[in-house]
């Protein structure tokens, strides 16, 4: 079936718009005496023209990208309930502050005395995150959640090896994000997976049994990816600490308890926070983000270099000399522009605002849970915080799968939830509305989900063949992977 809407993906590749001689830029004339190129560099180091590169005008470029943009849905257009991704509203003041030329036109290697404003900003951000985490030190260098995970596990490794034995294993729950085991592996550890209890949480007894002298740390998401808070978190810390191991918290879900409780008070040794989730820096279609990492006292000596420090006289400097540091996680000073946006957001919110974020995010998720639980199967019925995970169990009776439900939601104008994750739920539909959504938007979403559940019973083929109204319909993903075409060729 081809609907009229479905024919609007006509925008060719930018390379297909190319016409010889078109220009989308203008440079001033060269105002210095021109040397012959061959006098500057021998010809074997130079290239001929960049074969097949485009020649397009500014109009071509603006139309092209404007048309492409219209093929995306975005949080600005409506609820985007991707579980674990915290798709909240991105206030535009954040964009403006990050673009202030006095920030944007500073160079990362300028001497400290020239960039006191930047260093003050970073110092204040660290203070604010220290307070939010309840931890003595936060590194701002990691540029994404997974980058923060790697940083955190490297610190644990360094701390343990400094005291004689780096140990061998990291314990990870079976509902964890895939980045956790990947990060632990790149930090030099083997993974042992821990099974969730029937409540969907980690049982302290399971942990106690698994923590041997070989275990370096537990990586756990709080609340976990079912949205369920690990009420035994302090017990986990005690069990681990008694054996000299560490407690790592994946802070992807910090949005559900920011301002309500603090990781440091739970006995957590390391937490990373995805600033592009809880602190509202835009996702940008997959980044940039930032993943600052907070650490407990024992791990402070190992944080990456450089750190930002304040002198008695109120001036700031970058400290490069930290003898026990794991080293540098990236060139320069982290994703500064993202850090500016996050601090802008924290200041706009203030202490009361941050707490209200968590309260409303949890209220919204529970409202959706209450409205949808008679239409969709709830595999774990433990109380959840900021997200709720349903499954397709009821719809499977009509041979309608999670994927079909997700695709059908697009026809109702909503981005689908996260699907098939966490892995411990077969056919998972993981819904996180965030605090940004007014009740009317939540109701419209719930109405759509309920309508789809009815369609699954009455007109399953309609759901199975969805989406019908999107710029393109279901894609042949097998073809893309079997004979990969990963670039345009003339």
């Amino acid at each position, binding site marked *: 079936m081809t609907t009229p809407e479905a024919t609007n993906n006509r925008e060719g590749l930018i390379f297909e718009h190319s016409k010889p001689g078109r220009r989308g830029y203008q440079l001033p004339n060269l105002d210095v005496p021109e040397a012959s190129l061959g006098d500057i560099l021998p010809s074997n180091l130079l290239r001929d023209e960049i074969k097949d590169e485009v020649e397009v005008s500014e109009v071509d470029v603006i139309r092209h990208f404007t048309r492409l943009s219209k093929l995306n849905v975005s949080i600005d257009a409506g609820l985007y309930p991707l579980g674990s991704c915290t798709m909240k509203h991105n206030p535009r003041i954040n964009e403006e502050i990050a673009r202030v030329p006095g920030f944007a036109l500073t160079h990362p290697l300028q001497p400290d005395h020239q960039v006191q404003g930047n260093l003050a900003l970073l110092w204040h951000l660290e203070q604010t995150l220290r307070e939010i985490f309840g931890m003595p030190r936060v590194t701002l260098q990691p540029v994404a959640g997974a980058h923060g995970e790697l940083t955190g596990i490297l610190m644990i490794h360094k701390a343990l090896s400094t005291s004689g034995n780096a140990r061998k294993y990291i314990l990870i729950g079976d509902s964890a994000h895939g980045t956790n085991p990947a990060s632990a592996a790149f930090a030099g550890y083997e993974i042992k997976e821990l099974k969730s209890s029937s409540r969907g949480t980690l049982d302290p007894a399971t942990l106690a049994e698994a923590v041997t002298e070989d275990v370096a740390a537990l990586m756990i998401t709080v609340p976990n990816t079912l949205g369920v808070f690990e009420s035994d978190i302090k017990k986990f810390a005690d069990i681990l600490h008694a054996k000299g191991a560490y407690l790592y918290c994946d802070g992807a879900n910090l949005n559900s308890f920011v301002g309500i409780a603090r990781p440091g008070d739970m006995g957590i040794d390391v937490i990373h926070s995805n600033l592009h989730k809880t602190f509202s820096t835009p996702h940008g279609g997959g980044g940039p983000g930032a993943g600052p990492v907070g650490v407990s006292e024992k791990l402070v000596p190992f944080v990456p270099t450089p750190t930002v420090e304040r002198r008695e006289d109120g001036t700031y400097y970058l400290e490069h000399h930290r003898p026990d540091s794991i080293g540098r996680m990236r060139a320069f000073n982290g994703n500064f522009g993202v850090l500016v946006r996050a601090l802008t957001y924290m200041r706009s919110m203030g202490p009361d605002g941050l707490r209200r974020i968590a309260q409303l995010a949890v209220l919204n998720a529970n409202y959706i849970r209450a409205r949808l639980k008679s239409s969709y199967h709830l595999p774990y019925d433990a109380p959840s915080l900021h997200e709720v995970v349903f499954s397709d169990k009821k719809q499977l009776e009509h041979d309608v799968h999670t994927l079909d439900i997700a695709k059908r939601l697009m026809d109702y104008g909503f981005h689908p939830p996260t699907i*098939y994750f966490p892995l411990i739920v077969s056919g998972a539909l993981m819904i996180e509305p965030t605090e940004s959504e007014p009740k009317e938007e939540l109701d419209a979403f719930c109405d759509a989900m309920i309508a789809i559940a009815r369609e699954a019973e009455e007109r399953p083929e309609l759901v199975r063949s969805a989406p019908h109204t999107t710029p393109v319909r279901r894609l042949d*993903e*097998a073809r893309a*992977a*079997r*004979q990969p075409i990963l670039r345009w060729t003339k």
Partner: protein
Amino acid sequence: MATTPQDSKYAKSHEYTHLDGDIATIGITDYAQKELGDVVFVELPQVGSQLEGNEELGSIESVKAVSELFAPVTGEVTEVNERLRDNPELVNSDPYGDGWMIKVRISDPTELDELMTAEEYDEYCEKESGH
């Protein structure tokens, strides 16, 4: 559903082994290809390499899953199904025929005794999909 060939033996990790003289043809079962979905890539060992029974021999990928392939028997790889490089979908369309993966000169025929018969394998699959 394609019936499970009687003349082959089966591993719990869903590889079949068909013995002809001392050459074993190895692939994955019809049940396994259905569970995986559209196969998009098969990573196989090189001809001449030595396989150890129960050790990883390669991997098979569908669009959204990947699983390791395990050698049901010990021996030397004598042939690799080159057609799978460009046509991995053969594993889906004809797992016991054109979708075979490798041929191995086995060094210990008694290893086959450890594997399941067709009936045992069918029963095993039924149990697996039961929950």
